[in-house]
């Protein structure tokens, strides 16, 4: 056990420890050698495993995702970097029409063991084309497992699970949780075991227990919810904070159980508001906890506009601790519905 700051180190260590024992893993993507896939997810691997196993690709998302499909079909486990999730448009055909479907289309003949690493999120002034989250898009298409680690412990364990999974898994690492020196850090230093371990997909984590309301989030928003919960506690409001960890598979049971306990739910998301995670989670919660809900489920998300550049504009669209706190207070003080 030692203290670790951020998910980037944890993800890189997970890949390293699996690569050391397995020849089937290769790392592909832009800038995966010297720059560690820019956001650190592959840092140190090139020095250890060389350019034959850690391969800088030309800037050709369609082609290196297609290569991952072809290599997985003959038994490799490619780890592919989609540097910013915003770049998915350049390679998405190979992902959603092939990687996500070939197992199904082939009647189960072809496994697609591919781990995709991608950096998400804003809050540091990178604007419309470098600040999106977009995991809702991947979660919408059948065939991807969608993993959003909020802590270094989870990042390592979820990455090892991904590397042992015979299906395409996309790991969405938030830039403000990477722990890299050139970015703000909103996570916490934490203890991470040195040995290998897995974190199971489809198990949400209750990060803070409470009885007055439930806040549900993923990635960076988990930390902002926890900070909002601390302030709510000073007001005498006990907020429960749930980290969904994986959107696919989704642990609806934990969400429903918490909703049944508190009767009030706020879903916080850094993805676009409409047709995304917030709507899906709200549906699952009402499906399982309808009669226990005291008020309609509320949500805070990016209000269906691109992420703007200028700081006050950016702050106006990405959920902040202040706005989560205010929304939670409004939810708790809203009158309970009468049966």
């Amino acid at each position: 056990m030692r203290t670790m700051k951020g998910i980037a180190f944890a993800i890189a260590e997970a890949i390293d420890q699996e690569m050391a024992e397995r020849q089937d893993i290769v790392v592909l993507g832009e800038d995966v050698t010297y720059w560690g896939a820019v956001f650190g997810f592959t840092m140190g691997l090139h020095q250890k495993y060389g350019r034959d196993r850690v391969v800088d690709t030309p800037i050709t998302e369609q082609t290196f995702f297609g290569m991952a499909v072809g290599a997985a079909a003959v038994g490799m486990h490619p780890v592919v970097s989609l540097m910013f999730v915003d770049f998915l448009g350049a390679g998405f055909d190979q992902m959603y029409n092939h990687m996500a479907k070939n197992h199904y289309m082939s009647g189960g003949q072809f496994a697609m063991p591919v781990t995709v690493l991608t950096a998400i999120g804003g809050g540091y002034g990178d604007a419309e084309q470098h600040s999106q989250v977009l995991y809702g898009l991947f979660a919408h298409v059948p065939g991807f497992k969608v993993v959003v680690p909020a802590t270094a412990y989870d990042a390592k364990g979820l990455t090892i699970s991904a590397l042992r999974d015979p299906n395409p898994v996309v790991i969405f690492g938030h830039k403000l949780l990477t722990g890299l020196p050139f970015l703000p850090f909103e996570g916490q230093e934490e203890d991470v075991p040195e040995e290998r371990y897995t974190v199971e997909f489809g198990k949400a984590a209750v990060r803070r227990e409470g009885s007055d309301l439930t806040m549900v989030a993923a990635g960076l928003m988990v930390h902002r919810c926890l900070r909002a919960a601390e302030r709510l506690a000073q007001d005498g409001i006990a907020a429960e904070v749930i980290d969904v960890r994986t959107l696919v598979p989704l642990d609806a049971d934990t969400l429903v159980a918490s909703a049944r306990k508190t009767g009030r739910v706020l879903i916080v998301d850094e993805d676009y508001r409409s047709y995304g995670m917030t709507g899906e989670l709200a549906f699952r919660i009402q499906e399982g906890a309808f009669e226990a809900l005291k008020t309609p489920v509320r949500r805070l998300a990016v209000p269906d506009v691109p992420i703007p550049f200028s700081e006050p504009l950016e702050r106006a669209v990405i959920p902040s601790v202040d706005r989560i706190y205010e929304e939670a207070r409004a939810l708790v003080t809203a009158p309970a519905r009468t049966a």
Partner: protein
Amino acid sequence: MWKPEPSLADLQYLVEKAGLTRDALLAAYRQMCLIRHFEETIADRYYIGKTPEFNMAAGPIRGEMHLAVGQEAVAVGVCSLLESQDVVVSTHRPHHHALAKGVDASKLAAEIFGKQTGLCRGKGGHMHLFDKEKNFSCSGIVGASFPQAAGAAFAFRQRGQRNVAVAFAGEGAANHGTFAETLNAAALWQLPLIIVVEDNMYADSTPKWAALAQPHQFQRGLGYNVPSYLVDGMDVIDVYRAAKTAIQRARDGQGPALIEAVCYRYRGHFEGDAEEYRTKEEVELWRALDPIPRLGNRLKKLGWADDATLEALRAEAKRAAEAAVAFAEQSPLPDPAEALTGVFR
């Protein structure tokens, strides 16, 4: 005929140089006949329920249908040189490649009919054929085959296997970004990849002059330092000769190659295509180059077959195609509950 028809002496020389035996050429003839009859039998059944009014959802075979009648020589010339572990990634027009790679005709037909006994248990259909055992797959998305075959080639190089991967595509797909991207990557990493561009003159309905700034893909290949061959795709011997060199080089670790095979599809882009974009005269002109009689005539010229032998091979192929389709017709449809299985392993 844009390449000279060899004299007997030249033909004997070419065949010997290529290492082609009588048995190999007779096998190629039979395989091309199987593909031809298979495609024509599928076409026959496809129109059941679709005449007089053409309704794509009607009849025993639903959806689009892209047949490769006329393009048999390309598939057979290349795939007859492949081993079981070699990978083929094909296109939306995949039957000839599948059969040439050794995919079972009955399971192939059953998949086209959407049956439980099909290659993919009815989940893929005609444009999404997969055979793990034969290392065959395809995609209905134009341009998708290049990087996927490159990925398999990358794996082979990585593991020190002497296998190759073949990407088939049309000349329309050669306008896709993946074509240029894959040529660059394959040359950069010296992958054992063979890109075969089947230039059948039309991308759907678009004649190549309307879509290609220059008519030849081999020139594009050479620009990426990929050895590139322009072959007569209506001549199985010409295809075979180039493919043999290309595949041998790739197995020996000398990197990728491109084969541009100029050919022609006698049927429409899809069944039901009104073919407004070409004349009947043009189709007839290309009939003179039909790869099956051309090979038959050469076999006779070489003294390796007579009319009776060729007729017997054609009859055998026809029986095999009919048997495959009969198997498909008699097979059960899948249980609807299967639709909800298999997204994840």
